[in-house]
């Protein structure tokens, strides 16, 4: 795949508004028929529609099928929560729109809370040992509810025509010189701006432990409002504005920005001194699936060091297994990650105080 094609596809990567809406519709129409023969059907694997799905279709699934004999039906899922809603609704009717799904962490946790995910058998997934503990997700009783699939960084991105020098700190977002020229993600659960603000101004994310602390952080964050031109839900909208210089600064995905830069676009991604935000997707299996055994074979395969290296090279994601297990060169690793310690999202607060946070966040943005 040429870089050009890669970037065009990447526009829709973690999926956009329209894709979510469209997929909602098609998923409803293509809900599996009752009584299908379990063994002869392919394993249905959901990844974010667009770039992710295309990359997996090209680089991962064909090799998996020839290695294991398990055929795969690739399902394009809308981002995060929208897919969770579909899986929950379908599971109530005893159906699974996909057997295995790549889930963002907040919806994965919500699914775990309602016991949507089938418990997985660790002994059937021996490659689990390659992953650090925080990528092996467990129910309270210790059974595995999900396994880290891929990770990626959200960093500070700039248009190189407007900013000849790269910014060094997230504090640039607060700089009055950048009035009305910044693009930020619009949702509290995917922008991680609370963590960024806490790490930049409050020495780390532990201030987010209490509601008072969160309100302090929100207060600090509200100072960026005059600088924000666009609160985006749709990645394509921001990427285009960044490339043309219409909105010359913002937060965005490190991998996509790198691809755009290597394609000659005047953009750069910078890991600020406070660190980039390390976000990730995990594999989980719907409890309504009757293909748990094959799903475990698939997840085990995806945790293999060779496959994780392949994902970094071809899909641009950072590995979820320990770096030393991969055969990535320093240059290859630098293209997808950084040695600056990352800002880790506080998924727990979205889980514990989701509605309260969402309300405060809406009030912050709407003003």
């Amino acid at each position, binding site marked *: 795949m040429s870089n050009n094609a890669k970037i065009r596809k990447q526009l829709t990567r973690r999926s956009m508004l329209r894709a979510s809406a469209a997929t909602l519709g098609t998923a409803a129409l293509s809900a599996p028929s009752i009584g299908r023969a379990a063994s002869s059907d392919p394993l249905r694997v959901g990844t974010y529609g667009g770039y992710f799905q295309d990359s997996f279709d090209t680089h991962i699934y064909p090799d998996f099928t020839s290695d294991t004999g398990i055929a795969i039906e690739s399902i394009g899922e809308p981002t995060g*929560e929208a897919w969770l809603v579909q899986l929950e609704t379908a599971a109530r009717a005893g159906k699974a729109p996909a057997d295995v799904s790549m889930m963002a962490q907040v919806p994965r946790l919500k699914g775990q809370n*309602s016991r949507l995910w089938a418990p997985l058998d660790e002994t059937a997934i021996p490659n689990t040992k390659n992953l650090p503990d925080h990528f092996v997700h467990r129910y309270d009783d210790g059974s595995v509810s999900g396994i880290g699939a891929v990770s990626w960084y959200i960093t500070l991105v700039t248009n190189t025509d407007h900013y000849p020098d790269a910014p060094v700190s997230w504090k640039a977002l607060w700089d009055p010189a950048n009035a009305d020229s910044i693009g930020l993600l619009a*949702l509290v659960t995917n922008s991680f701006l609370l963590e960024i603000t806490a790490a930049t101004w409050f020495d780390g994310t532990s201030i987010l432990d209490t509601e008072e602390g969160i309100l302090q952080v929100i207060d600090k964050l509200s100072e960026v409002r005059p600088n924000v031109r666009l609160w985006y*839900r749709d990645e394509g909208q921001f990427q285009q504005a960044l490339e043309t210089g219409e909105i010359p600064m913002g937060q965005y995905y490190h991998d996509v920005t790198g691809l755009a830069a290597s394609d000659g676009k005047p953009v750069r991604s910078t890991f600020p001194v406070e660190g980039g935000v390390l976000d990730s997707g995990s594999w989980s299996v719907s409890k309504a699936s009757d293909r748990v055994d094959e799903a475990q074979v698939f997840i085990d395969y995806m945790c293999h060091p060779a496959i994780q290296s392949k994902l970094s090279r071809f899909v641009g994601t950072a590995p979820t297994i320990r770096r030393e297990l991969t055969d990535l060169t320093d240059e290859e690793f630098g293209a997808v990650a950084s040695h600056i310690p990352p800002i880790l999202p506080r998924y727990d607060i979205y889980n514990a105080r989701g509605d309260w946070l969402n309300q405060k966040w809406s009030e912050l943005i709407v003003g």
Partner: protein
Amino acid sequence: MTRRRSDNSWHLVLLPAATLTVFFVIPFTIMLAVSFFQRIEGGFFEPAFVLSNYVRFLTPFFGKILATSVGLSATAATIVVAVAFPFAYVLSRMPRRRQTTILVFILSVLSLSEVIVGFAWSTLLSRTAGIGNLFHWVGIAESPRAYTPGLASLLLGLAYLAFPYAVLVIYPAVSRLDPELPEAARTSGASPLRAFTSVTLPIMRRTIAGALILVFVFTLGAYLLPQVLGRPRHWTLPVHITDQAIFQSNIPFAAAMAMFLLLVSLALVGLVLVVDSRRRGDQS
């Protein structure tokens, strides 16, 4: 024989009735029921009968958002009808062929999706590629600037989307308008403007009310344009409903907000109809 025929004609009603039931009544009933369900925070929802979803909406914050939505749609409706009515009137006085050409052009706008319209306007009004450059080039503006996002660009986008619908409603009525009526006013000494305001407009009152309602209800559902062309303070209730339903998986609250939106639009439409029938009552 006669009896059988009447049976058949009765069956004809079944299809639309079934369609209405399956695609409107059932989903609506489900939404109504879900709006009373218990939200499980950090989870999904479970059947119950609670009023908390409605209570959460009754705050100044959501009141402001509802007012924003209604205000935006009312403004858009006024602008659209104020432009579409004279437009349709002039159009109906044109030669037949030209009318057809212009109508086909106007209707072709309907084939554009909201996404395309939104992004096209955001580019047209941008600093880097928009009309600001043209103003700069001809010397009106010192340097190109962006005209989006903002209230004006949002209203422009909404008006652009709704304009063909308003023309569709107004055009048939104005083309049936008897030209002798305004002419009579003119021969009695009224200026063209006065003939228009005192004769043509009153006859068209119901058409205008119909067009206003249509555009109002149509733009009340807008959720993409406010995000693309507006600032967060212009985000309408549907934007927040989408956030709750899609991104917070809080379906009960989204359903309750949708019920509010529906009730408000029904109430406003009802109000217009009541005022209209009262006035007609006064006149007769």
